[in-house]
């Protein structure tokens, strides 16, 4: 416990150190405050946005954008991943195609999505879903394809139905892979939420940052970046919490 506290204290000290360096750099005018505000100015701006409520709408918009795209990608990724992972034939036919699509930068499909769906929220959701499906999908394929053969024999000898095998054996056994995949996917979803907002002028933190930069409101710009950082951090912590709960059995005292 004390070791845990020491770790947290150390991490916080490092953050304080960086903030101090930033404050000093701004104070001595190393960079013009028009482009680079001090952390105090940035946090003041943030506090003001919280106080007058200007923060919540764009924050909510970006969060929902990220969550919807990610949620759709996670569900589709697990379902398609299960279908591919459980069938050897499907794996052999589809894996080369997946390997072609996976490294494709999701931002490259934005023009394609725009030409089909316009500068709309649906376009944004589609791009986010396309980008964040890969880690989930590939993890699910791997997870479902590598169910222990001994457990397959156990399922046969207990006469489990196909549905029971899928639900009670294959899914839980693929769960560690899937959870790692959805966590990576959430990070990608946040990136793409911001990128699509900037590209398509959709309301949200991404658009606000862009507008702040164009009108030289650097504290606003940096406040937006800080909020995005916190959003990503909190989202990641939430999934880690779920992971710890669902995979309790993986880290047990002997």
């Amino acid at each position, binding site marked *: 416990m004390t070791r845990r506290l020491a770790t947290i204290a150390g991490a916080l000290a490092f953050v304080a150190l960086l903030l101090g360096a930033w404050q000093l750099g701004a104070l001595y005018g190393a960079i013009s405050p028009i482009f680079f505000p001090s952390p105090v100015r940035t946090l003041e701006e943030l506090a003001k946005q919280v106080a007058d409520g200007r923060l919540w709408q764009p924050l909510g918009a970006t969060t929902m954008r990220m969550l919807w795209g990610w949620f759709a990608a996670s569900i589709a990724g697990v379902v398609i991943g299960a279908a591919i992972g459980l069938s050897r034939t499907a794996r052999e036919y589809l894996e080369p195609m997946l390997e072609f699509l996976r490294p494709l930068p999701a931002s490259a499909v934005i023009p394609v999505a725009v030409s089909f769906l316009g500068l709309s929220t649906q376009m944004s959701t589609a791009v986010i879903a396309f980008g964040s499906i890969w880690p989930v999908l590939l993890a699910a394929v791997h997870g479902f394809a590598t169910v222990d053969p001994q*457990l397959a024999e156990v399922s046969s000898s207990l006469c489990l139905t196909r549905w029971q095998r899928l639900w009670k054996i294959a899914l839980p056994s693929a769960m560690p892979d899937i959870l790692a995949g959805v966590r990576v996917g959430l990070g990608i979803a946040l990136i793409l939420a911001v990128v699509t907002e900037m590209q398509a002028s959709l309301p949200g933190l991404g658009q606000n940052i862009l507008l702040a930069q164009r009108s030289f409101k650097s504290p606003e710009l940096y406040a937006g970046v800080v909020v995005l950082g916190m959003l990503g951090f909190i989202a990641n912590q939430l999934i880690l919490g779920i992971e710890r709960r669902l995979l309790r059995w993986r880290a047990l005292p002997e």
Partner: protein
Amino acid sequence: MIQAPVIEVRTVGMSFGNGTGARAVLTDISFDVVEGAFLCIVGPSGCGKTTLLRLLAGLLRTTTGVIRCHGEPVTVPSRDRAIIFQDYSKALLPWRTVANNVALALEACGVEEPERGAQVSALLRTMGLTRAADQYPSQLSGGMQQRVQIARCLAQRPRILLMDEPFGALDAITRQGLQDEVTRLALELGTTVVFITHDLEEAIYLGDHVIVLAANPGRIVERIEVGIARPRSQLATREDPRFLAHRHRLFDMLQDH
């Protein structure tokens, strides 16, 4: 009185691969097991004894010959025949607690709560697992894990229990305890048991009958009736002159092949 056999194995052969690459694993295996009997199959590694057990379970299909249980040809697994796997650590679901691992067999049979919970508690009590009910398999010793697997098999109320070297990886004291417990349970429930082992003494100690297999290809070289009444005793039975006589004869036989 002559009983109709529960298990009939008739000139069973099994080979893997086909054409010129085919490798015969078992040839010309025939035997019967009567209701409630305890049959041990002993042989060196590579003699196909695990393959034979998987054939009996219906996890594999015979290449030639036929296996019948209760008069029906065996082609697929049935709840009537439970199999206890050698590698208990892989045969349990690591993400389920002990109680829920046992419950899996009842879920497969469609037993609903609260009946399921009651049956699980009873099985855990039978196998001495009550205190471990909420633990995960990785927290248990090998002997305890094997108890969980046995409890799960008993949950489906099989008439035939197939055991694949279930105690091979356990220490001597744990092994003896489980040997006596399994034979006692089988006797109480009237379960027919086919037990695979590479340990000759274990085979004679447990079995009403012992079949000896030789390797390349796997075939029956000897079958004996042990002729010592069950239940047996770890000390008295192992000092019984009949036990020693069987041991001598079969020991030489395993050496020769």
